């Protein structure tokens, strides 16, 4: 992962810093990072979006702080420093969500606090923010955060649709539809994630196959 995500220190091509997180280097589907919250809170679409946005906030804020302090952090204690910065912002998010919506806080439970140990955030801090300036780091954080939210939404919608026949709490499937209760249970998370990875592998393979065919034709 490190070889591809160095970014460019000159600061040109900043739209690329933003877009790569959405699709080409999507943290969940391509890098397979941050699996714990991805699987645990995606039993409904609304939880998935809330979790994604909370992670997005922490990611952007910690990227800003770390990239602006990157010249002062000694190399030996950098991981500990990163973790402390991240933990501070997670505490902020935890209390903020508790103030905004207590229901949501109960639904997400300990997983808000567990954003601290989300590998996506530490990974971006180590691989990007500690080597690049503030502006590219903000864009990188936004892109990765939105990519993460998008992936969570993909899982959340499928699981909620099949597990309780609704999307964002609105019933869409006919009442005749027998809910697949297993999809909102833990094992459903594993199955859905496996299926999405299959879809992504298939897409990647088709594109690679297409490129090869084009080369042969030429």
């Amino acid at each position, binding site marked *: 992962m490190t070889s591809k995500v160095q970014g460019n220190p000159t600061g040109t091509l900043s739209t690329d810093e933003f877009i790569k997180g959405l699709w080409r280097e999507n943290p969940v589907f391509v890098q*397979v*990072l941050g*699996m*714990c919250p991805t*699987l*645990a809170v995606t039993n409904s679409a609304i939880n998935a979006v809330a979790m994604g946005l909370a992670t997005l906030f922490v990611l952007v804020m910690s990227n800003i702080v770390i990239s602006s302090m990157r010249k002062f952090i000694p190399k030996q204690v950098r*991981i*500990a420093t990163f*973790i*402390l910065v991240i*933990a*501070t912002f*997670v*505490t902020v998010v*935890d*209390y903020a969500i508790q103030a905004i919506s207590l229901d949501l806080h109960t639904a997400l439970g*300990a997983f808000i*606090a*567990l954003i*601290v*140990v*989300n*590998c996506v955030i*530490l990974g971006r801090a180590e691989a990007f923010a500690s080597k690049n300036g503030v502006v590219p780091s903000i864009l990188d954080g936004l892109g990765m955060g939105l990519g993460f939210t998008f992936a969570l939404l993909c899982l959340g919608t499928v699981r909620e649709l099949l597990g309780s026949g609704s999307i964002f709490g609105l019933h869409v499937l006919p009442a005749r539809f027998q809910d697949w209760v*297993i999809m909102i*249970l*833990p*094992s*459903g*998370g*594993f*199955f859905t*994630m*496996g*299926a999405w*990875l*299959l879809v992504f*592998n*298939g897409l990647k*393979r088709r594109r690679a196959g297409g490129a090869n065919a084009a080369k042969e034709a030429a």
Partner: protein
Amino acid sequence: MNNEPLWTIFIGASLINNFVLAYFLGICPFLGVSGKVATASRMGAAVMFVMLVSSICAFGIQKLLVAIGAPYLSLISFIAVIASTVQLVEMFLKKMSPALFRALGIFLPLITTNCAILGLALFQTNKGYGFVQCLVYALGAGAGFTLALVLMAGLRERLELVRVPDLVRGTALTLMVAGILSVIFMGFAGLGG
């Protein structure tokens, strides 16, 4: 004070609410180090040790923070304690068993970001366990983690030998198998009341 009997806590943490298969904590090492049974079981032991130590520390810290009226610092201090415990284990292993140190590789420092350990510290605080209950909870969670890791490693060793379509090979297959394991562990529900 929560007065749940000790054996219920142990069975609950290791089987019914298995940290990996029911709470999705510690998925990264679960997917990463579950290639061989030998490595998996040692990784489990290392995680169990870190869990025990950080559980004891977390219990003390929580009491201290509540006493000085600053419980909002708990998350930050938990993670600091876990990071230093992992550092300790890392130095110990490097000295005592360099072969194992190399086999675990990057996943050893990554125990710091293993959600299972921070999750354990948070859950025991939320549930209001006493000191002995915390210890048993940590032991149970560690045993459950090791069990899931070793089971998975055994299955993956077998899967190496069978022919599966190329498309499925890799993480997708592991996740599907994990899903089936998770269904199996649901069978433990109701055990221990």
